[in-house]
């Protein structure tokens, strides 16, 4: 059962770049050894926190997208919890939402194909409706 998860975590702002690299590579190897795949790792850089977390006003955000089972995520979260420089993390499952978005996109494209390009198309749906009523 493969699911896609987004794992966002905040590390303390005074962390050295190499240490962060090391942390990310350990997480990646953990994902690989648990039978998952890392889709992307994105460093979002230093950001101001909306509220103080462990007396920190800023933090470095990292976004990791991974595919795998729930057990994998469980292990990753446990790891993040015991890793001292990580001050906060959040895991969100994204595949269901992505499926929904793809479906909507597909429907829209099908509708666009069905209706050939007319002047009303630029006006969007509401424009089309009003044109139909007035005609």
């Amino acid at each position, binding site marked *: 059962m493969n699911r896609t998860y987004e794992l*966002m975590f*905040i590390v303390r702002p005074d962390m050295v770049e190499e240490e962060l690299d090391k942390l990310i590579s350990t997480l990646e190897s953990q994902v690989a050894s648990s039978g998952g795949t890392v889709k992307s790792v994105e460093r979002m850089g230093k*950001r101001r*926190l*909306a*509220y103080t*977390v462990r007396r920190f006003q800023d*933090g470095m*955000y990292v*976004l990791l997208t991974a595919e795998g089972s729930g057990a994998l995520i469980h292990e990753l979260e446990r790891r993040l919890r015991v890793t001292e420089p990580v001050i*906060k*993390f*959040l895991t*969100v499952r994204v595949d269901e*939402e992505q499926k929904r*978005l793809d479906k*909507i996109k597909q429907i829209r494209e099908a509708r666009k194909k069905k209706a050939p390009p007319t002047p009303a198309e630029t006006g969007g749906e*509401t424009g089309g*409706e*009003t044109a139909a*009523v*007035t005609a």
Partner: protein
Amino acid sequence: MAEETRTTSAPAGERPAGEQRPGYRGPRPAGGPGGPREGGRKYFRRKKVCKFCVEKIEAINYKDVRLLSQFVAESGKIVPRRLTGVCTPHQRRLSTAIKQARNIALLPFAGRPS
């Protein structure tokens, strides 16, 4: 709420448009001006439309702070639907996204007096 506003505002609000085009009862264009008021009610409330439906924004993501912060009050509270005009399905997704963003310190929790 949307139906109610339309039916109550239709006699007063849609009349000028009706004179020009008989039988026109389509939806009002998004973001258009309120229109002139002649007699009847003193104040006029523009019909609110759901931003996400109009602009066809489907992805409401917790990372999109700029989008989410439009629906968060100064104090950090989520602005209710009756003020923003967001439709129910989108408000549901919006509130989930705001709560996720709060959790990862992208948005403040409600309660800070500022």
